[in-house]
């Protein structure tokens, strides 16, 4: 007997009789003998709960986790503060064991938190509408590019070189197979090169700008917005939601589509996933957007309630004509984000952003004071920054690691042409003591 399968021998006998077959094998008689396995799968035998726990703990202990290490590593995955409340709510199995809310009468919990997620993200980004979430920030960006093509029927999408290199890779994959042309707008001083905006023309469906960009630099989107809209192209902004506590929002920049990675909003780093992609747009383009959207309505008695809406865009209705093949959303991660945003509230989100920007700037100044680093990009920065060094990056990594610090990202790992450049991430969680310690260790590296 297995603890998840309640079938007793007696049950089985009774059920087979009722069905009118002799044995379980008869229920598989429709499978041709030639393709039957007729041997045991060559995987493990079953383990007891205690054995599984031991095995899994042994594996997890082979990892060095960020509870024991102080992290200055970012580049798309960040060590932000996660309030206890988040895990407690996300662990409620009424939420996590439910399906997509296709039966709204028994899914009002899920639907309402999605509605609240949409509301809070719309507030943060300044957009008219945000959907129920996407797989991650990179795929949300690719979906935005495809959406733009659908909106204005043009053939190419222009992307700033300052975008996260892995987001670019995902864009490349999606666009290659969809037969969409991608062009790169060059960068200068760690920012999108405004001189090269002439690449944007009447055949450009959209311009994609990440801000803060991969180098941590907050881009000035205003001149880009001007050229983009002059060419009747769509402006797609990829943003870090935490930065929006203080940074000018995509709505204020009159962006047409906003996307981003929401992991910073209360979601564990999880070795890269599950994370939380988001996508939003203007009221005008709402019906072109991919993914689920929750809307407010009322029931037959006039009582307020929520439903999935505008489903005529989606694959289960439109099949090959759908706005995307996406079927799910990252619902549980959206729940974490909405609880996080509820906890932080309108003051907290600003406080977090201010701590990030001041701690990152403090760290950068301290590192520059060691005379072992050179500032390569003038900024302004938010929670990450790039410094160039003549020191051996591996030596820095090793020295820090010995003192239980996970150091910055060596950019050459993702961008081969960038030598000796390190990307540091400093969130509100880093203390002055931790920062000073990191700087002191690097001082001693030769």
């Amino acid at each position, binding site marked *: 007997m297995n603890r998840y399968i309640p079938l007793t021998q007696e049950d089985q006998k009774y059920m087979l009789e009722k069905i009118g077959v002799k044995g379980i094998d008869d229920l598989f008689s429709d499978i041709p003998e030639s393709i039957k396995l007729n041997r045991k799968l060559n995987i493990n035998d079953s383990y007891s709960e205690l054995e599984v726990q031991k095995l899994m703990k042994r594996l997890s202990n082979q990892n*060095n986790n960020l509870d024991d290490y102080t992290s200055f590593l970012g580049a798309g995955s960040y060590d932000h503060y996660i309030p206890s409340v988040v895990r407690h709510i996300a662990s409620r199995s*009424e939420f996590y064991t439910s399906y997509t809310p296709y039966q709204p009468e028994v899914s009002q*919990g899920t639907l309402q938190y999605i509605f609240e997620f949409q509301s809070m993200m719309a507030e943060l980004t300044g957009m008219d509408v945000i959907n129920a979430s996407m797989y991650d920030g990179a795929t949300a960006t690719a979906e935005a590019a495809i959406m733009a093509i659908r909106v204005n029927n043009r053939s190419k999408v222009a992307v700033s070189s300052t975008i996260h290199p892995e987001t670019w890779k995902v864009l490349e994959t999606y666009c290659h197979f969809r*037969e969409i042309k991608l062009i790169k707008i060059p960068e200068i001083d760690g920012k999108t090169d405004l001189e090269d905006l002439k690449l944007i023309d009447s055949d450009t469906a959209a311009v994609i700008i990440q801000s803060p960009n991969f180098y941590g630099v907050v881009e*000035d989107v205003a001149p880009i917005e001007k050229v983009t809209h002059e060419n009747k192209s769509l402006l797609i902004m990829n943003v870090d939601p935490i930065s929006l506590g203080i940074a000018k929002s995509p709505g204020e920049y009159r962006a047409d589509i906003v996307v981003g990675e929401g992991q910073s909003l209360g979601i564990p780093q999880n070795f890269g996933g599950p994370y939380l992609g988001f996508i939003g747009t203007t009221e005008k383009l709402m019906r072109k957007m991919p993914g689920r959207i929750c809307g407010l309505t009322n029931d037959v008695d006039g009582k307020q309630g929520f439903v999935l809406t505008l489903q005529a865009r989606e694959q289960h209705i439109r099949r*090959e004509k759908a706005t995307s093949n996406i079927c799910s959303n990252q619902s549980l991660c959206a729940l974490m984000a909405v609880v996080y945003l509820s906890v932080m*509230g309108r003051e907290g989100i600003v406080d977090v952003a201010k701590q990030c920007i001041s701690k990152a700037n403090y760290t950068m100044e301290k590192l520059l004071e060691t005379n072992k680093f050179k500032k390569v990009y003038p900024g302004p920065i938010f929670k990450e920054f790039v410094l160039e060094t003549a020191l051996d990056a591996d030596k820095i990594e090793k020295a820090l690691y010995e003192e239980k610090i996970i150091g910055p990202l060596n950019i050459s790992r993702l961008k081969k042409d960038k030598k000796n450049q390190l990307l540091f991430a400093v969130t509100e969680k880093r203390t002055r003591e931790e920062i000073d310690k990191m700087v002191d260790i690097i001082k001693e590296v030769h």
Partner: protein
Amino acid sequence: MKNYNQLMIDLSKKGRKAYALPDNDVDVKPLDDYLPKELQRTTKPYLPEVYEVDVIRHYTNLSNKNYGVDTGFYPLGSCTMKYNPKINEDMASLDGFTKLHPYQNENTVQGSLALLYDLGQKLSEITGMDGFSLQPAAGAQGELTGLMIIKKYHEDRNDIKRRKIIVPDSSHGTNPASVTAVGYDIIEIKSDKNGGVDMEALQAVLNEETAGLMLTNPSTLGLFEKNIVEISRLVHEAGGLVYYDGANMNAIMGITRPGDMGFDIVHLNLHKTFTTPHGGGGPGAGPVGVRADLVDYLPYPTVEKKEDTYYWDHNRPKSIGRIMGFYGQFGVLVRAYTYILTMGAEGLKRVSEAAVLNANYLQSQLKEHFKLPIDTICKHEFVLSGTGGISKYRTLDMAKRMLDYGIHPPTIYFPLIIDEAMMIEPTETETLETLDRFIDIMLKIKKEGEENPELLRNAPITTVVRRLDEVKAARKPIVKWSRE
């Protein structure tokens, strides 16, 4: 508390707070010194100001308005709503898995890499494939990945006139939508009278433009495709590849394998067959497996092993590319791995046996009372016509009435080829008593429908809200709270 009806923003009161950040202990300058004024936002976002108890009570109250597998029976066909073991959650919450940065040095994450490597091996054995990518985030992204592999395979052979993907008319909506997403065209073929692929229709459309065929087996009708070996052979002969949509893998584990049926590419839905929770709509995971000569096309990076050390292999020139920002839904993969350890080879086979037994039992008891369009042994699910031609009420009304009896209704109106379809998948984690109770409820509802159809049309009456006005929601969408 089912009448709880507040939005989080309604609880807001200026001056309250639910967070506690440490003091900012570095030297702080005015914001303008860091960020020029013109790059700053002008107003604070309109987020709630509440204290911690508000947050907990609000979302606890919302959770009480939800129905999950932990609440009760959830026979939602094609979704495999089985029990989500609690140990899976505990293991996925270990600090050694959750508190890891994806770019950490490989030497510091050997445990995670070993897990991923071993999971890939196990999934390969379960499906009869030669290599797996664990990157796809969901079933739909698995399909997309598989189709990209098909396209790249033809591109590399310079066989670019192959642009057509064949799917049966019973297929899930993501199949045709994924075909569009790779720029291919779709050809839908009719099912035969037994719900299988119509062999003549298939042969009629196979030609030098065929890129591939997508198939679920057992089909969305819950029936095993008996001709599968012949189907694979025909598609291969025409130069196409055969793609396996793993939505219904719960019926055949340890009994037969997609690889042995002739499939070239498969995706699995770990949130169905491998008990990771559906999470109210995600995150799931849709790993993709391929036969040996397609392994090079899998998304990069893949996890490889050299002696006793695991590493990420980014250097894969034939790969379709990257499809996720990092490595996919790692936390979900940990859960699935835990489940496979718990079940073992014999346990997984027993899962499929019990799932198929439960479905056949329900089918045998219900077919006396409801119209069963295709009367044969089913696999893990079956499709009834809910109303069977009675026009006083619809299958939708039956589903809504079921909510009043405290169970989640089956999938309705899918697959599209069955009139008033009701697709029932009990899964292996339900007792005989639960199945019998479901049968009783189905019969009761049928009787109610015959005697008083109004009762069904007005259902549900006991839920926190009753039928919602979807037309109103779509006509003038309200998709966020107002600022008043």
